[in-house]
């Protein structure tokens, strides 16, 4: 456990010293500029526009960190051979991989928290309200990023960094059109296409489940049961993908 946390801390430190938090500064600037612009273009609904834009920005920047950093930092350890000195010590391979995962998730979480706080403050400045629903929507984005980072970890173990990044991006994009894929299966009547499309739907996560932007921006009620199911779904998916990554990494020759 201690070794795993040490690896997680080291990963977070690496990300921070790689100036990942500059992305947060980029987000803050984007929020300021876009709020000014959209504040001029919309009348009466500035608050909603800022919330909508803010949550989209939080999601986009978090996805950037999750996808780019995850594959890069894990591959860097293996290709850079720093992992050799670690795994020759009494550290299990799954401990190494989970340590990296936790460090990456901590990096995403730190950045996301800072972005969420900027967003809440901006909304307060423009609409005069403290909207804590934004923090809930951000937490759900973090859960989504936990799933995405788990996939990035799996692909970092399975393939080269560039391919890993492409595959993770593909999962992210397909994950957001999963419901459309399901609708597609309903329209295909014959042949092998239907089971293939259905298999893709069942294998990949439905990331739209974590999207509560509309509910939060328009202040719609969310059934607690739906929140619970979403949390269980996100955690279960994350655990499943991480188990696959650990099993593969445990058998891998580090040449």
């Amino acid at each position, binding site marked *: 456990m*201690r*070794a795993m946390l*040490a*690896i997680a801390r*080291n990963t977070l*430190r*690496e990300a921070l*010293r*790689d100036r990942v938090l500059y992305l947060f500064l980029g987000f803050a600037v984007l929020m300021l500029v876009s709020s000014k612009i959209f504040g001029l273009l919309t009348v009466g609904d500035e608050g909603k526009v800022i919330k909508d834009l803010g949550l989209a920005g939080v999601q986009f920047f978090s996805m950037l960190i999750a996808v780019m950093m995850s594959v890069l930092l894990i591959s860097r350890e293996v290709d*850079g*051979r*720093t992992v*050799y*000195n*670690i*795994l*020759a*010590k*009494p*550290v299990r391979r799954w401990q190494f991989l989970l340590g990296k995962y936790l460090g990456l998730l901590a990096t995403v979480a730190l950045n996301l928290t800072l972005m969420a706080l900027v967003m809440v403050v901006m909304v307060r400045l423009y609409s005069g309200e403290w909207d804590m629903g934004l923090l809930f929507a951000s937490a759900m984005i973090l859960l989504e990023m936990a799933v995405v980072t788990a996939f990035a970890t799996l692909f970092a173990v399975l393939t080269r960094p560039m391919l890993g990044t492409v595959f993770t991006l593909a999962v992210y994009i397909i994950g957001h059109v999963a419901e459309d894929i399901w609708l597609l299966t309903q329209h295909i009547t014959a042949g092998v296409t239907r089971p293939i499309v259905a298999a893709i739907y069942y294998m990949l996560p439905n990331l739209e489940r974590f999207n509560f932007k509309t509910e939060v921006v328009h202040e719609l009620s969310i059934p607690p049961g739906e929140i619970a199911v979403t949390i269980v779904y996100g955690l279960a998916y994350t655990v499943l993908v991480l188990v696959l990554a650990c099993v593969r990494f445990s*058998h891998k*020759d*580090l*040449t």
Partner: protein
Amino acid sequence: MSNVALRVEDLKKTFDPGLLKAKVEVLKGLSFEVQHGVIFGFLGPNGAGKTTTIKAIAGLIWPDDGAIEICGLPHTDEAAKRKIGFMAENPYFYPYLTGREFLDFHAELLGLARDTAPTRVSQALEKVSMSDRADRLMRTFSKGMLQRMSLAQALLGEPELLILDEPMSGLDPLGRRDVRDIILAERERGTTVFFSSHIIPDVETICDRVAIVVDGTVQAVGEVRDLVAHEVEAYEVAFVGAAPPALTTPVLASQTGSDASWVRVDSGHRDQLIRELVDDGVRIVGLSPVRSSLEEFLLVHFQGGES
């Protein structure tokens, strides 16, 4: 307790590079033992299987067959891993860490107690003469300094068995001397040192025993002096006075002094030369074998393996 620090038995490993490429059989039943408290050199040409063997011992690759024991324990056992210190070839580091942060990180991986870890880190830094540069970022370190830091992390757990893959590669003579001194000091402390190297004079100087690996198998193993002792390639015969002017035995080299002289002939002509000198009434005072150096010995084995 067994006196064996490291036992490698019938190790086999074949790499599969992927579709449409031939499999590469790197280790073909490699076996050897390293006794406690010795410096053991692992020698071989490029592609002989040295690094693959070392990676298998360190648990970085999985052998297809065979067994590896560290101090009587299976090498994958956590207790076995606590007994080793490992330094990889051409080590890479985290450029964003200082030397001390790097060792603190490795102290945590080893699970060293929080109250003793700082002392151990300081001791390791001192052993590799890096105490005064420990708080600099590692991206500013030279290759020699990185090599020392790599050694420091390997020494941090006070291992029983130190495994070093090419520890002197890429170092200048001063750096090589420092690494050599550290290895010798570790043996004095009772640590077993197992290391691979291409730099034969270093191996010849500091190793108690060596194994020569060619094409995935161990070709020879033993003490350096025993290995080269089998390779007597010539004899020198010393005698009083000058050599007879018309020696019929083919001579490799000779030297004439005011009191004594010597003549060198290959092993096959030793008896012929002695007979000829005795027949000429020369008083022989010495006969000594001329042995090959370890380098010459290795060349013979390496070429033999390649052919």
